[in-house]
């Protein structure tokens, strides 16, 4: 088995194959980054909506809770299928990449909104009351008082979720999005040994995820002592 790998290696580790893999890693990172950025923005909006108390906004609060609970309770693969076919009813010209981005954004919004909400709830209610008596509006209170105190609680678990999103994007390969896992499959179809191919793919994921995990663990310690 090993002689086969050694014999195959020079053919596998060529410049073009490696560029191919690196590009695929770029796509995986791009998918994850899109998910994280959208997830933070919409997750914050959802968490903020859930922090409102106005009885008029009750239906809106209910809707966002339903959204969050749905997307935290169905498998990402199922989300991908639903988004893909729903989008194709509307238009046939949407790229697979765009569908994958949309799906990961829906997932990340649901999960990150919970992380952000937990962070916001860690800020004492009295801080919000003080802002209220100073005539801060709702959004000013969120941006000037709540978020600057909540981010210490938000950041460490957010990193864990970023790693989760990197791993979840591998399922987009099943829709035909040419990211790292898909590239592994196509290299295997070109006759390379699965040992070599999936070894490299696993290493690729590890190289992307591990620094984030370490950074998250480091920040968790740092922020807890600060």
């Amino acid at each position, binding site marked *: *088995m090993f002689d*086969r790998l050694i014999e195959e290696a020079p053919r596998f580790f060529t410049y073009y194959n490696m560029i191919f893999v690196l590009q695929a890693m770029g796509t995986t990172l791009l998918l994850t980054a899109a998910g994280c950025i959208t997830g933070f923005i919409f997750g914050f909006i959802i968490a903020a909506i859930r922090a409102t108390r106005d009885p008029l906004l009750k239906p809106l609060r209910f809707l966002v*809770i339903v959204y969050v*609970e*749905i997307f935290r*309770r*169905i*498998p*990402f*693969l*199922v*989300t991908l*299928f*639903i988004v893909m*076919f*729903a989008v194709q*009813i*509307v238009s046939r010209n949407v790229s697979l990449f765009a569908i994958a981005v949309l799906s990961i954004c829906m997932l990340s919004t649901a999960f990150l909104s919970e992380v952000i909400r937990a962070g916001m709830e860690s800020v004492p209610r009295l801080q919000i009351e003080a802002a209220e008596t100073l005539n801060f509006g709702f959004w000013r209170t969120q941006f000037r008082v709540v978020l600057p105190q909540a981010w210490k609680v938000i950041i460490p678990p957010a990193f864990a979720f970023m*790693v989760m999103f*990197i*791993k*979840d994007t*591998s*399922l987009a*390969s*099943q829709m035909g999005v040419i990211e790292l*896992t898909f590239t*592994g*499959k196509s290299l*295997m179809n070109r006759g390379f*040994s*699965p*040992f070599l191919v*999936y*070894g490299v*793919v*696993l290493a690729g*994921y*590890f190289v992307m*995820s*591990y620094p984030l*995990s370490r950074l998250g663990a480091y920040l968790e310690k740092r922020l807890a002592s600060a």
Partner: protein
Amino acid sequence: MNYTLQYSVVLQQLPYLLGGALVTLQVAFLSFWLGAVIGLFGAVGKLKGNRLIRGLINAYVVFFTNTPALVQIFFLFYALPDVGILLDPMTAVVIGMTVNTGAYLTEILRGGILSVRRAEIETAEVLGMSHLQSLRYVILPHIAKTLFAPLSNFFVWLVLGSSMAAVFGVEELTGRAINISTANLRTIETFSVVALIYIALTVIASAALALVGRWCFRVTARIF
């Protein structure tokens, strides 16, 4: 945009889908308990083992928590036959998910054991309880309290994660959904019904676990 939703064809297949849900639960259960055994050994090894053992366990945890389970299973499924190990899809999936679960549970259980040590020392100092008393009144409730929420969340996550078995042709819930939708071409209807089944499964699982926690360990866990 002329698409009319037709659910009747999917609803006829409901028993078939629910059978798939049963397979989903089987996969999740099997991986959870087998993974828990690995996790327990891992946690104890990480706390009590020598440098070499700790290093090996660390490498195991770090590797499996930082790479996708899907690709790990691809590796098992496609690479192992090269060395003469042929796995059927179900076995490959369960092995992959078990090894993954073991890595996560090593960390979760280690946290639980560490927190018990502190509680044990504190009560021993403060109350002067006997060993058995502190086990009964302090340590077990403490373990239950710290570990219950992360473990039940993890189980829900496994139920969802097991859907990747469909990629390898296992006929669990998602796999059966793919089967049906390729036959009836009602993908949205099929998958929205399947999504509802997953939601029901996870809500029932969380609720059941929360009730168990409340009755047996007096833990008040959130379902939502």
